């Protein structure tokens, strides 16, 4: 039984995605990606060429990634991720992963940031590194980022002792020069995340995994505003079309969809590139 799709009649983006797999008038910018294999999951499309093919297939114009190897070992993984992104600048950029458990090596990694054209921000993962977001060993990272008015993507999760809303609020208030991207938008504690975004203009809410909670997209848009919400899907973890389907079938208007899928991220990315003296299509 084929049925007409009400949502596709309300959104040209969705209609394009259903028919074409991408939207020519709204190329997606994804600020929450990774790269490479991962221990707990079979990832069929985690290598460089496969990820580029996925981006093509799903209409993702630009991706910013932190390497899985970098999350496990900064020394090995950050240069690897940067080298991959460097081959596709304009299409692919990298986050420098910062693990506060290794402060000496962390300093050495930060020293590579300015000269590496692929880096457009820093990536923190308090739960993997088992260290609180507002702990003192992150202070050198924040000082470094504040000096450069850099973008910092951090894993966040609701009701989490290491990276819940109160932890991010504390550092966002202390470092207003930094743009913090709350990865997963404090999944499971969305209302508190909205409060953080409303009180801290330097906090953006990112949708990876949050999109798969019915109503979360609508809640975040209504509470924080569409201009504070970013698209991401942990590529190569999650199928972008699954994530996009959750956003495009959500009960929000097309203008909000365009802001989430492209416009908000484009502003952030171009701002970071200008601060590094670069342009997206150099």
């Amino acid at each position, binding site marked *: *039984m*084929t*049925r*007409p*799709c*009400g*949502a*596709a009649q309300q959104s040209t983006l969705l209609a394009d*995605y*259903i*028919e074409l*797999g991408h939207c020519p008038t709204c190329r997606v910018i994804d600020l929450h990606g990774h790269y490479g294999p991962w221990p*707990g*999951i*079979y*990832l*069929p*499309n985690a290598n460089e060429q*496969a990820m580029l093919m*996925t981006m093509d*297939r*799903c209409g993702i114009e630009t991706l910013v990634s932190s390497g899985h190897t970098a999350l496990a070992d900064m020394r090995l993984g950050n240069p690897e991720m940067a080298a991959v992104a460097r081959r596709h600048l304009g299409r692919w950029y990298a986050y420098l992963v910062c693990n506060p458990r290794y402060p000496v090596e962390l300093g050495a990694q930060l020293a590579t940031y300015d000269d590496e054209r692929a880096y457009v921000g820093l990536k923190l993962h308090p739960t993997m590194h088992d260290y609180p977001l507002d702990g003192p060993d992150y202070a050198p990272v924040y000082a470094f980022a504040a000096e450069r008015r850099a973008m910092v993507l951090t894993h966040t999760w609701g009701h989490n002792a290491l990276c819940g809303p109160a932890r991010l609020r504390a550092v966002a208030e202390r470092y207003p020069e930094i743009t913090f991207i709350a990865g997963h938008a404090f999944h499971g504690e*969305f209302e508190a995340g909205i409060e953080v975004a409303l009180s801290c203009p330097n906090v953006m809410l990112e949708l990876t*995994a949050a*999109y*798969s*909670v*019915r*109503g*979360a*997209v*609508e*809640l975040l848009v209504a509470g924080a505003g569409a201009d504070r919400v970013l698209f991401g*899907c942990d*590529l*190569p*973890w*999650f*199928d*972008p*079309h*699954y*994530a*996009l*389907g*959750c956003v*495009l*079938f*959500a*009960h929000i208007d097309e203008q909000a969809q365009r802001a989430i899928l492209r416009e908000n991220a484009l502003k952030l990315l171009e701002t970071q590139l200008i601060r590094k003296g670069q342009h997206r299509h150099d």
Partner: protein
Amino acid sequence: MPSDLAFFDCNVTIGSPMAGLIRPCETAQDLLQEMDWCGVGRALVHHVLMREQSPTVGNAMLSAAIADCPRLVGSWALLPPQTGELPSGPAFLEAMHYHGIGALWLFPDEHRYLANRTTFGSWFDELGERRIPLLISRAASLRAHPSSMWQSIYTLLADYPQLTLVIMSHGCWGEDRYFRPLLETYPNVYLDISRYEAEGGLAALVQCYGPQRLLYGSAFPDTPMGGARLMLSRTPIDADARQMIASGNLERLLHEAVLI
């Protein structure tokens, strides 16, 4: 064309969960509205009270709720036969037939039983011979390590290798290392793709095992109906395979079941 796909969602729930949801789907009419929004034609439905209350309450709630909704096919929950709370055998099958019930849920953790031969004896042999689909959710035990629920599914299938078993809502992380051995060992094991979000996973599965063992589902309303729908619409597989997953396989399973 993807817009011509007919969708039959194998995994939706109505009712008001105890712990609440941001946007629950309380009634059949709420569900039908969202199906129209997403272009989904039919759905296999269960009621939240089948899981959160006794099936003796929830099964009847489900049947009453969808009685006037020809686009919705009902499912009921089972309990072990020893306590006599639900009938088993011909009386149960006749009731299923009367109410248009197409499949049966198992909620072993919530209802505190072990889904194995010691518990279900010849009753599951009969359900297997009749090809009545049994549905079991990995998500029900998400708070536990996934291996515990997968271990119980492995045990159930070792005891009943011919059972028609649909594994619902397995985790979003892509649990191929758990379920691929089952697909290779048991011919009547099926997967709902509602939370199979792994990038490239669906196409890889179809390439390895064919499309016959996969069912479109959404896990609605915990999860939006549109995610798996767009993923399936655009996954790089051929049109016939896509249609089989979208609705054909579920229609076949329901058609093959012999109730009376």
